[in-house]
């Protein structure tokens, strides 16, 4: 068995499991005024402080959500509504075309239902948005821009965006910028205060925490219109009773992710390089996706295109040998679609069907890489026989 899909989800850290299970036995709604409520609130607030510390933010800037998708929706829709309410001219949304669907579909929804004009920023062949391109797009009419959203690092091909430079452009024009940092957290230095971002998304289950919890880091000057209305929790921006065990567990995973980041990047980055070398040795005409420069990509990500193969066929053949990975692209009703990320980078649509993403994590071993190295060559040969149907 070789689990090479940590970017989809990674096993929970034992410490995070311990924190969660300890809290599961404790009664208390963090909004209640009695002793049980106070105890729960203390756990939540200590966790919030831990997360803020891990992410270079103030505790009040941590808005807990049900996960990355909700945080992305809150940032994109909430900031759009708030900015447009303040000035009806602000209907232009600038987004990278390589965003996760949680951002992409939210942005498209704004265009279809809320009168937004979406402008997709140009990307280079590695899927990277350049600060000059953003400046050009904003400067064309700075008064009509509602928000900018560009992910910190791409979930499919691993390319890292120049977030600091992009945020600098946004600040220059006083436009809020959001970044989805779901894949970046734990692999790159993610410092919210230093980033200059207005909002930033993180998720627990990608860093060894539990499912169903994430956060939107939200600068104190910003008050997005809520997506969820209710009891007024989380700065009145995100209502809903907090999941205390999940929050506590997220905090532990977040702290460990921040503390262990450099070592993780070094060790897993080394293993990733071995994996990439092994795949290219077995399949010399495979194409490494994303930025080939070591500093230009996520250390745990290796993305390949195998010409003449259907990604789905490779997935089936590797799965049958206990090797678990992803094609990297989204599905519609289980049918693989050519990745919008690859298409945005100018990849030929036929080539874009033959992709696999291998993503490593804290449980990855050299054995995983060796298993893949043995299996990938014959799998590609076989998948080529089946061809592109």
């Amino acid at each position, binding site marked *: 068995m070789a689990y090479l899909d940590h970017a989809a989800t990674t096993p929970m850290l034992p410490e995070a499991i311990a924190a969660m299970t300890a809290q599961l036995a404790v009664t208390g709604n963090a909004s209640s005024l009695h002793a049980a409520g106070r105890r729960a609130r203390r756990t939540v607030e200590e966790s919030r402080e831990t997360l803020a510390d891990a992410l270079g933010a103030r505790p009040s800037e941590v808005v807990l959500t049900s996960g990355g998708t909700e945080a992305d929706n809150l940032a994109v829709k909430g900031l759009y509504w708030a900015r447009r309410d303040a000035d009806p001219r602000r209907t232009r949304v600038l987004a990278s075309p390589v965003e996760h669907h949680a951002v992409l579909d939210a942005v498209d929804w704004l265009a279809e239902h809320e009168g937004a004009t979406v402008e997709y920023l140009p990307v280079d062949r590695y899927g990277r948005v350049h600060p000059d391109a953003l400046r050009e797009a904003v400067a064309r009419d700075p008064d009509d821009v509602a928000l900018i959203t560009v992910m910190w690092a791409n979930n499919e091909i691993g390319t890292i965006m120049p977030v600091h430079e992009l945020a600098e452009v946004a600040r220059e024009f006083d436009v809020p910028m959001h970044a989805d940092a779901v894949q970046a957290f734990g692999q790159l230095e993610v410092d919210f205060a230093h980033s200059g971002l207005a909002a930033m998304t993180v998720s627990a289950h990608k860093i060894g925490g539990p499912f169903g919890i994430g956060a939107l880091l939200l600068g104190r000057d910003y008050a997005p219109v809520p997506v969820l209305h209710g009891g007024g929790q989380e700065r009145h921006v995100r209502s809903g009773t907090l999941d205390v065990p999940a929050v506590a567990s997220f905090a532990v995973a977040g702290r460990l992710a921040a503390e262990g980041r450099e070592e993780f990047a070094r060790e897993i980055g080394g293993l990733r390089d071995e994996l990439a070398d092994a795949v290219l040795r077995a399949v010399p005409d495979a194409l490494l996706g994303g930025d080939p420069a070591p500093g230009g990509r996520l250390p745990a990500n290796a993305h390949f295109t195998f010409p003449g193969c259907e990604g*789905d*066929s490779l*997935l*089936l*053949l590797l*799965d*049958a040998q206990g090797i678990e990975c992803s094609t990297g692209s989204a*599905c519609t*009703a*289980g*049918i*693989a679609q050519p990745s919008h990320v690859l298409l945005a980078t100018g990849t030929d649509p036929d080539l874009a069907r033959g992709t696999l993403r291998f993503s490593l994590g804290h449980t990855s071993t050299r054995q995983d890489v060796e298993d893949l190295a043995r299996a990938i060559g014959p799998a590609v040969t*076989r*998948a080529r*026989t*089946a*061809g592109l*149907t």
Partner: protein
Amino acid sequence: MTQTSQRPLRVLAAMSGGVDSAVAAARAAEAGHDVTGVHLALSANPQSFRTGARGCCTIEDSRDARRAADVIGIPFYVWDLAERFREDVVDDFVAEYEAGRTPNPCLRCNEKIKFAALLDKALALGFDAVCTGHYATVVVNEDGTREMHRASDMAKDQSYVLGVLDEKQLAHAMFPLGDTLTTKDEIRAEAERRGLAVAKKPDSHDICFIADGDTQGFLAGRLGGPAEGDILDESGTKVGTHEGAFGFTIGQRKGLRIGHPAPDGKPRYVLDISPVNNTVTVGPVEALDVTALTALRPRWCGTAPAGPGTYTAQLRAHGGETEVTAELVDGTLHVTFAEPVRGVAPGQAVVLYDGTRVVGSATIATTARRGEPAAAGR
């Protein structure tokens, strides 16, 4: 003669989301084969949930199939064969109706999709066989050759829609439901026992790509709006009007809406459809009697018979058997009925049987009424 091979095979189970294919996959897995489930996405725009009649192209069907695969404990994938299906089945279906014939898309799907496009890909990926929930029996002879026979339970037999398979296709086909005398209720009980949630799912009856069951409306959408034309009697006298000849089937009685009664006061039936003139000819039931037919595109399950032979023939899905003599002449199958048969529709398949064994099939091109030679018939 054995039905299942003793050697464990790598089997790709086509899973529609219905109860039959789920039980078939479960039986194949239980027999020790290494089974992988696959749902074929055949519609370019799968509807979110089924509407009206049961189809097999909805997201819900795909989820039902996946859920069944999870319970059986086998890997599951969705393969997009929508383009092939459109070209080989849907477009062919429309063209056949346009030409005045009555096609059977299920046969075409088995011939071109399940046991061609799907089978080819399966073999290329290292699978040995494709398994479906059809009711038919495969018999392996001592010399390794294979025969397809009717299902043990004649009431559920589906060998007619598999009659297009040749021996090569049959060599890689597995029908785990065909060799057991099980009623549908028993299959459902078995699904229930196996924990398959599809146990109570209604059967699919209609053409899967026409979800609402409105074949006329579907054809009108493809072939342009209804074009009004004449309904004629056998003498060529106009007796009514119709809204597009392509929607009719030979032998059809309902929906003619002929205003006044026939001279003899008896009901009239569709005898002939002429898309070129956009006319439909009707007449009394006796005029439907067919004594012979010719059929094209013969496909043999094994070697083609040399010289004329005596067989039983089936002329439509769920149709009865009839005694015939048949002979292949220059690639055209000539079939003569021992007794006249009624309601034979060009476009349907004639499947020949030797006892329970499927000999082959061909697509009906022309029929001969009493006193006419088939080749000159309609």
